[in-house]
């Protein structure tokens, strides 16, 4: 036993940039990739880890002193740096058991399809990383690998059921039939349900707002380099920097936000042959079924309502970060709150005013959960060696996807009674959401029938 254990420890001690590519090559060969391809993918994966490590380190080194200066000058304590989703994906893939999430997802999806409990075939294998992140957070909090896989499996079931009931609404927004979004970020819509219900009682909010013109005017602020420059500049000003230092910080921040997606792309490049093979395999197995193909969220990225909501939420998030007592996260790489705007788009059916109000109501939740998970996430980063976070630096994600689901399940996994009660409440809300969207689907179908009859 000891020999095996020390052998595994030896492998892990290579660091994520070495052992995850090694795993990837082995998994690739098992999945019948050509060795040459598997090797190439594996090395690219290592490059992705090294690249992300460099950019995250650069970001932390640039922003942390400014955050320290901010607290000295103003007393505002924002000492947790927001690494955004790309940083979290890096941590997730660095988990030694990460690849097991592929077969688990295939199994869960296949079982639900065979039992006729879902009509969705999730071919978006990339986003298993969301389940991996949930699992590592559960382990970080509870230490239990078994619970981590159980919660990840629950998340897989939930995302498939949500993909089923959201399909018609998604078709209405995208105009594309037969597809749905099986991204877990839709889980947040369950939490939005009661707030959306209250807001739907206010007739004034039913007004249609022209998002297209707003998008044209505001779109430039959403570009990574512009957003980075503005946030870096603002931070420099509030930190009491000199003009030269303000501008340097602004450009450094712009560089970090521009480089993150460029480097994170390498993860995808490395993993896509494998995920393609898996999704082709699954499609072949269920060829003769009428299915919704479950895809990643960008099928909804044509919605200007979503973009306007994301952009307008940026100043709201920054203001909340400053004024909320107990918030310690400095929103940065994750500041564009996709995790909020996309589920809000679905639940409101594209009503911009309601989306914005939902954002104003729920943004504090994102910031508090990000603050709450920061020490767990920082510890994970150091444990896996995927990212080096220096002493005194903290990292998290200001717009962590489905923060409520992750927080209460993590809390329940610790055996916390309140957490367990919250899980029960959440499940009840989930059933209510499921029924509400089912009714909405029937209404849409009836309208379609009438239109085709007329």
């Amino acid at each position, binding site marked *: 036993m000891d020999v095996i254990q020390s052998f595994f420890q030896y492998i892990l001690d290579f660091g994520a940039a070495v052992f995850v590519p090694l795993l990837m090559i082995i998994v690739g060969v098992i999945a019948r990739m050509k060795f040459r391809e598997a090797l190439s993918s594996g090395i690219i994966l290592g490059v992705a880890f090294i690249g992300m490590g460099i950019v995250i380190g650069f970001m932390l080194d640039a922003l942390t002193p400014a955050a320290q200066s901010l607290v000295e000058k103003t007393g505002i304590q924002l000492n947790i740096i927001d690494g955004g*989703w*790309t940083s979290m994906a890096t941590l997730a893939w660095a988990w030694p058991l990460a690849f097991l999430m592929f077969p688990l997802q295939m199994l869960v999806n296949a079982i639900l399809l065979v039992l006729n409990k879902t009509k969705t075939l999730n*071919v*978006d294998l*990339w*986003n298993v990383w969301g389940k991996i992140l949930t699992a590592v957070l559960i382990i970080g909090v509870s230490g239990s690998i078994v619970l981590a896989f159980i919660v990840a499996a629950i998340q897989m079931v939930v995302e498939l059921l949500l993909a089923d009931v959201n399909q018609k609404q998604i078709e209405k927004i*995208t*105009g*594309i039939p*037969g*597809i749905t979004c099986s991204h877990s970020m839709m889980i947040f819509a369950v939490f939005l349900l009661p707030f959306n219900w209250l807001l739907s009682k206010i007739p004034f909010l039913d007004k249609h707002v022209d998002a*297209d013109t707003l998008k044209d005017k505001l*779109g430039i602020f*959403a*570009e*990574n380099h512009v957003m980075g420059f503005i946030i870096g500049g603002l931070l420099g000003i509030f930190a009491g920097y000199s003009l030269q230092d303000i501008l340097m910080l602004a450009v450094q921040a712009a560089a970090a936000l521009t480089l993150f*997606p*460029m480097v*994170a*792309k390498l*993860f*995808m*490049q490395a993993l*896509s*042959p494998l*995920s*393609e093979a898996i999704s082709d395999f699954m*499609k072949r197995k269920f060829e003769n079924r009428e299915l919704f*193909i479950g*895809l*990643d*969220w*960008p*099928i*909804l*990225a*044509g*919605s*200007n309502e979503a*973009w306007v909501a994301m952009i307008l939420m940026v100043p709201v998030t920054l203001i909340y970060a400053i004024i909320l007592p107990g918030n310690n996260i400095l929103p940065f790489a994750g500041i564009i709150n*996709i995790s909020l705007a996309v589920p809000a788009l679905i639940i409101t059916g594209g009503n911009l005013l309601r989306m914005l109000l939902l954002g104003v109501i729920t943004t504090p939740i994102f910031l508090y959960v990000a603050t709450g998970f920061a020490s767990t996430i920082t510890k994970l980063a150091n444990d896996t060696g995927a990212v080096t976070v220096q002493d005194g630096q903290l990292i998290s994600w200001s717009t962590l996807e489905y923060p409520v689901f992750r927080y209460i399940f993590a809390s329940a996994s610790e055996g916390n009674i309140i957490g367990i009660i919250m899980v029960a409440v959440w499940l009840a809300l989930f059933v209510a959401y499921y029924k509400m969207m089912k009714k909405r689907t029937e209404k849409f179908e009836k309208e379609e029938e009438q239109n085709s009859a007329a």
Partner: protein
Amino acid sequence: MKKVIVACGSGVATSQTVVSKVKKILEKNGVRANVEAVDIKSLDLHVKSSDVYIAITKAKKQYDIPTLNGIAFLTGMGLQEETEKLISLLK
């Protein structure tokens, strides 16, 4: 060499998936082209220097370059048609 761009929400995941599919298809058909994943937030900038845009969304806006349906590459439905269009645009 002609340039093809694929855009998605961050230029990381979905667009990169389509890029690797498209690259494979082009390789099989012996067509050479630059295929690149880009961020939809900066799409206007990228369109200027590209020849074909593969969209994953139904865009309201019309662009000056031919636009193909990227969903076909993700789901396999209508793939043949989009492939033929792409190849004829690049030849």
